[in-house]
C-alpha cells in the first residue's frame, strides 16, 4: 500500500490552518477578525516549507499508487501556494469595504484554503477517483464564494449559474470516466496509459474516444473553453471582485494541472487519435475567436476580463492540441505568465473599484494623473496580455505557438496571431481611459490615493515578474522543464 503520511504533509498543514480559522471564527467571533488573514498566510507559508522539506527528493507513488510526488506536482503545489498567498494578501483591503463579507471573514479564508488544498491534490492525483474528488474540492468552495455577497442579487445569480453548469459539466465528466473505466478496466492513470500502449486498437475504440471527449468537457468548463463558457461572463461580473480573482487564477491553475495530468499521464498517446486532437483544436479555435470578438463591445471591466480569460484559455489549448513534449513546458510557462499578469490587473482593478464604487471601464479615467504608479503597472499588465514583446504574455504565446507549429498546426497558430491583434483594441481602450480621458466624478478628483502596503508590494512583484520573464526567460524555461523532465510518467513508459 505504501502509506507515507509525510508525503501528504503540505496538504495536512493547510487543512489544519483552514479548520483552525473556521473554529476560531466560530468561538472567538469579532476578536479573531483581524488575525484571520495573517494566520491563513502563515499556514500557506508553512505549507511551502513543508513542500520543500518533505516532498522535494521524495519522488514516488504513495497510497496504493493514487498519489504521486514528482517535479510536476512540486511545481504546481508551490505555484498554487504562492498564488494563494497573494490572494490572501490582497483580500483584507477588499473585504473590510464589502458589507456582507465583513461579517463572515473566517468562512471566507476557510474556503480559500480549501480551494488551495484541492489544487495541490489535483497536481498529485494519479487516479480517476482522486482527480474527481480534488476537482470537486476546488469547485464546491468556488460556487459558495461566488455567492458570498448574499444581499447583492447579482452575486446570487452568478453563484447559481456557476453552480448549475459546473455540476452538469462534472456529471458529464464522471460519465466519461465510467466509459474510460469500462474500456481500459483500470482507474489508475498509469494503468490506463499502459492499457493504451499495449493495444494499438484501443485508440480507434469509439467508446473510449467518447469517454475521453466527455471527460474533457469537465475541464473545458473549468477553463471556460467556448461551448462551455456561458457561465464565465455572468459569474465574473456578479461575484465580488476578490472571488473573480480566485476564479481566474487558482481555479484555472487547478484546471490546467488536472488537464495535463489526465491527458499526458493517463491518455499518454492521445495525440494518435485524430478525433481527440480535433476536439481540442475546435475548443481552442472557438475560444480564441468568440472570446476576443465578444470582448470588443464590453463596458464592464470584470466582464471584459471574463472574455479575455476565455481567449487565453484558447491560446493555452493550442499547446494541448500540439501533444508533444515541448508543448508540455510551454503550457506551464503560459499558465505562469497568465496568472501573474491577471493577479496584477485584478489588484489594480480592486483599488479602482473600491475608490470609485464602479466596475465600469470608464472608472479608470484619469488614473494616469491621480496615481501614475497604478496606471503604469496596469498598462504593463494589459500590454502583456496582448502579447507585445517586452512582457511575459509574449513569452507565453511565443512558446505555445512554437509548439503548435512544430506539430504542424500552423492554421491554429495563424488564428491565434490574428485574434491577438483583435485583442489589442479592447486592452488599449483601458489604457486610453487611464491616460487620455478626464472624468469629473472619478479618480482624478481625489488626487491622493492611499494605497495599502501589501498592494504596493504585490503589484510591484507582479510587474517585476512580468518583465523578468522576458529579460531572463531561461529561469522560467528551466523551472518548467524541470517540472516536466522529473516526471515519473516519463520514466514509467
Amino acid at each position: 500500500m505504501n502509506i507515507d503520511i509525510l508525503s501528504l504533509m503540505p496538504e495536512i498543514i493547510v487543512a489544519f490552518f483552514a479548520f483552525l480559522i473556521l473554529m476560531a471564527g466560530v468561538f472567538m467571533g469579532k476578536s479573531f477578525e483581524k488575525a484571520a488573514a495573517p494566520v491563513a498566510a502563515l499556514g500557506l507559508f508553512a505549507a511551502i516549507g513543508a513542500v520543500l522539506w518533505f516532498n522535494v527528493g521524495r519522488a514516488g507513488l504513495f497510497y496504493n499508487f493514487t498519489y504521486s510526488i514528482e517535479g510536476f506536482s512540486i511545481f504546481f503545489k508551490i505555484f498554487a501556494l504562492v498564488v494563494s498567498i497573494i490572494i490572501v494578501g490582497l483580500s483584507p483591503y477588499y473585504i473590510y469595504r464589502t458589507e456582507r463579507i465583513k461579517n463572515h471573514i473566517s468562512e471566507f479564508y476557510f474556503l480559500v484554503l480549501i480551494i488551495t488544498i484541492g489544487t495541490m491534490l489535483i497536481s498529485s492525483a494519479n487516479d480517476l477517483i482522486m482527480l474527481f474528488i480534488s476537482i470537486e474540492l476546488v469547485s464546491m468552495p468556488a460556487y459558495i464564494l461566488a455567492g458570498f455577497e448574499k444581499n447583492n442579487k447579482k452575486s446570487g445569480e452568478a453563484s447559481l449559474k456557476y453552480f448549475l453548469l459546473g455540476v452538469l459539466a462534472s456529471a458529464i465528466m464522471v460519465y466519461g470516466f465510467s466509459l474510460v473505466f469500462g474500456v481500459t478496466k483500470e482507474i489508475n492513470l498509469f494503468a490506463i496509459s499502459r492499457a493504451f500502449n499495449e493495444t494499438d486498437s484501443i485508440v480507434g475504440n469509439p467508446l473510449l474516444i467518447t469517454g475521453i471527449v466527455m471527460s474533457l468537457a469537465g475541464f473545458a468548463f473549468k477553463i471556460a473553453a467556448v461551448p462551455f463558457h456561458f457561465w464565465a461572463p455572468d459569474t465574473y461580473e456578479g461575484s465580488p471582485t476578490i472571488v473573480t480573482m480566485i476564479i481566474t487564477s487558482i481555479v484555472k491553475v487547478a484546471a490546467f494541472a488536472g488537464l495535463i495530468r489526465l491527458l499526458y499521464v493517463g491518455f499518454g498517446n492521445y495525440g494518435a487519435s485524430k478525433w481527440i486532437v480535433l476536439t481540442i483544436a475546435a475548443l481552442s479555435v472557438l475560444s480564441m475567436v468568440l472570446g476576443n470578438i465578444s470582448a470588443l463591445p464590453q463596458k464592464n471591466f470584470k466582464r471584459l476580463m471574463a472574455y479575455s480569460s476565455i481567449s487565453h484559455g484558447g491560446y493555452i489549448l493550442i499547446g494541448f492540441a500540439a501533444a508533444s513534449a515541448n508543448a508540455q513546458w510551454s503550457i506551464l510557462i503560459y499558465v505562469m505568465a497568465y496568472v501573474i499578469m491577471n493577479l496584477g490587473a485584478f489588484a489594480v482593478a480592486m483599488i479602482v473599484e473600491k475608490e470609485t464604487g464602479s466596475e465600469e471601464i470608464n472608472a479608470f479615467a484619469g488614473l494616469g494623473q491621480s496615481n501614475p504608479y497604478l496606471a503604469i503597472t496596469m498598462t504593463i499588465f494589459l500590454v502583456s496580455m496582448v502579447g507585445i514583446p517586452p512582457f511575459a504574455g509574449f513569452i507565453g504565446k511565443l512558446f505555445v505557438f512554437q509548439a503548435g507549429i512544430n506539430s504542424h498546426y500552423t492554421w491554429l497558430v495563424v488564428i491565434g496571431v490574428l485574434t491577438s491583434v483583435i485583442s489589442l483594441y479592447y486592452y488599449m481602450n483601458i489604457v486610453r481611459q487611464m491616460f487620455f480621458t478626464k472624468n469629473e466624478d472619478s479618480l482624478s478628483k481625489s488626487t491622493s490615493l492611499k494605497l495599502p502596503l501589501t498592494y504596493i508590494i504585490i503589484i510591484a512583484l507582479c510587474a517585476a515578474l512580468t518583465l523578468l520573464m522576458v529579460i531572463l526567460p531561461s529561469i522560467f524555461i528551466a523551472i518548467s522543464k524541470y517540472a516536466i523532465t522529473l516526471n515519473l510518467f516519463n520514466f514509467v513508459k
Partner: protein
Amino acid sequence: MSIALFKILIANYDIKLWYFLVISAILFCIGIFGVLTRRNLVQILMSIELILNAAMINFVAFSAYQKPESQLGTIFTIFIIIVAACEVGIGLAIILSIYRGKSTTDISKINILKW
C-alpha cells in the same frame, strides 16, 4: 457474498452487460433532456442527479462484469454518492438564497446578468 449472488443471477437469467449500458445511456439522455427543458431549479438539480446515477450504473456494471475481484468501480460509486450529496447540499442552499431574494425558482426569471 454479493458477488456470488450476482454470478448466480447472471448465469440463470442470462443478463448481459449491454443491458446495463443501455439503461444508463437512457438515464443520461433523460438527464440531459431535463436540464435543457425544465424551468424549475429543483427539477434541473434532479436531472443532474440522474446523469450522476447513469455514471454510477455504468461503474457498477463494468466492475461486476469485467473485474469482479477488484471492486474498483464499486469504490468509485461510493465516492460519486458522497459528491452528489455535497452537490445537493450546496445547490439547495444557493437556490434558497435566490428564493429569499426573488421569491421564485423559475430559471427564466433569474436574468439580471446578460451580455
